[in-house]
């Protein structure tokens, strides 16, 4: 047989190229079929291809009256790390209407002991990586992502605006803000914003030793805000190192974070879809599997002036409501049958002294303590304060340079 001519070879190449492009197209088409397309209306139809059938079954089970309503809600998730990313994924899978994500961090390989992010996403900003994954999981969800630090002056006002105007319907407020951040400053910033706007929000946290966590529901004016009392910690019978943040010093477990994210989203769903009872505080001590719950009243002397304003507004609203009758139960004082030697307990320090040193302590449930105490605010001595000057920052700067 004669060896093929150049022309024949060229023909073979062409044929092979055509085959290859046809194969490539097939692969593309296959991708298209596994890619989930947006669905206009949630259906309860029980077929394998309906991503909402198991959720809509909640209605048949008599748990939720109107599950479709979840599409009307908008939620801001601040911090999409160990807790926030899982929280956002749960809400996405539940078919939430809109998610606003805030975070200024990048995905790092050191995050891989937690759920959600994958090694190939290292180097991407967390919000960008999260949006991509979540859109693929559920294209029905609307996203707004912001890659910035909310605690700086420049970003804070924008952050407030997005809470105020980031609802599902244009220019309405979001329905809830979820704090999934890892530091005190960011929690305080969220608290400040929400008190000012009267926005309900959930705080969540995992301790630095990774074995305890909590969620807290803050309704400005009604329940204790984050500034009303020193941060709360769940006592774990270990050296308690309070609510601290991630970073090289901190330990973290995917388990604890997922448990806290689960608690958080469960209560978000209960609040939005109005079923069951929403927990105002739910603690988690992983070492003993102990889950304290309680409800805390706001502190009338809260440092945050907007918290005090919201408390006043809340009390006015409550006063306007018709009151249900309350029957008071009186507790009888314990009187011992005999006390022959007239023994009584006397403290070395007076009650007032002890109270002043410890400061006002909130009413806490068993197993929960404050991270630190604050001394009672003393009558302000004017000598404690530096005299306010009329110097501008420029004058001060010059003064410093001349030193």
């Amino acid at each position, binding site marked *: 047989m004669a060896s093929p001519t150049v022309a024949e070879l060229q023909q073979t190449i062409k044929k092979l190229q055509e085959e290859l492009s046809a194969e490539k197209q097939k692969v593309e088409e296959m991708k298209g079929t596994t890619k989930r397309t947006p669905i206009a209306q949630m259906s309860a139809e029980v077929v394998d291809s309906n991503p909402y059938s198991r959720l809509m079954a909640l209605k048949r089970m008599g748990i939720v009256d109107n599950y479709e309503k979840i599409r009307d809600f908008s939620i801001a998730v601040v911090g999409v790390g160990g807790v926030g990313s899982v929280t956002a994924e749960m809400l996405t899978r539940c078919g939430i209407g809109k998610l606003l994500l805030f975070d200024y961090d990048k995905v790092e390989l050191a995050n891989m002991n937690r759920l959600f992010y994958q090694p190939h996403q290292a180097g991407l900003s967390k919000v960008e990586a999260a949006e991509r994954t979540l859109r693929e999981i559920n294209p029905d969800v609307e996203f707004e992502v912001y890659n910035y630090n909310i605690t700086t002056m420049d970003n804070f006002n924008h952050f407030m605006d997005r809470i105020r105007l980031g609802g599902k319907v244009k220019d309405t407020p979001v329905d809830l803000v979820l704090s999934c951040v890892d530091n005190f400053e960011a929690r305080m*910033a969220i608290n*400040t914003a929400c008190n000012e706007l009267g926005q309900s929000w959930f705080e969540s946290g995992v301790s630095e030793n990774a074995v305890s966590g909590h969620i807290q529901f803050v309704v400005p004016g009604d329940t204790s805000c984050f500034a009303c009392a020193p941060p709360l910690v769940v006592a774990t019978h270990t050296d308690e190192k309070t609510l601290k943040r991630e970073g090289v010093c901190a330990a973290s477990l995917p388990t604890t974070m997922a448990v806290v994210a689960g608690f958080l989203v469960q209560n978000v769903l209960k609040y939005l879809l109005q079923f069951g009872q929403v927990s105002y505080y739910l603690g988690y001590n992983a070492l003993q599997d102990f889950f304290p719950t309680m409800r805390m009243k706001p502190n009338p002397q809260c440092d945050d002036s907007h918290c005090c304003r919201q408390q006043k507004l809340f009390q006015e609203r409550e006063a306007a409501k018709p009151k249900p009758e309350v029957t008071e139960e009186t507790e009888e004082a314990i009187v011992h049958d005999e006390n022959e030697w007239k023994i009584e307990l006397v403290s070395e320090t007076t009650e007032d002294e002890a109270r002043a040193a410890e400061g006002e302590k909130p009413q806490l449930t068993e197993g929960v303590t404050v991270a*630190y105490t604050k001394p009672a605010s003393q009558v302000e001595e004017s000598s404690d304060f530096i005299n306010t000057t009329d*110097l501008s920052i420029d004058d*001060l700067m010059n003064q*410093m*340079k001349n*030193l």
Partner: protein
Amino acid sequence: MMNLFCVFPQYVQNNKEADNDWFRLESNKEGTRWFGKCWYIHELLKYEFDVEFDIPVTYPTTSPEIALPELDGKTAKMYRGGKICLTDHFKPLWARNVPKFGIAHAMALGLGPWLAVEIPDLIQRGVVTHKENQDSAAAS
């Protein structure tokens, strides 16, 4: 808020008078971002570092987060971006003194002790070395 900054030049002056000067800071026009240098003397050698921080919106309820960016990743006592760890030695102190504390306190009671503990350790581990162009304390 201005009165909280006012103690600051006084603190710098006190340091100077006591021959105990250890940082230089200036701010942007709004006073929201501060930057400069701080230095630490170890075995008669001066080690100098850039220092920066923002005044958070929640100030004075929360303290500024002081950062030494060039040491980022070199010690475990640091958060992303070179923010020094203030959690144990300074945050509770700040919280108990709101709203009396300001920048001078954050430098003196936050950064100061951190440098005193961390820098000798960093030098010993060879992570921080003395740069020739920096004056030694003996010469200056």
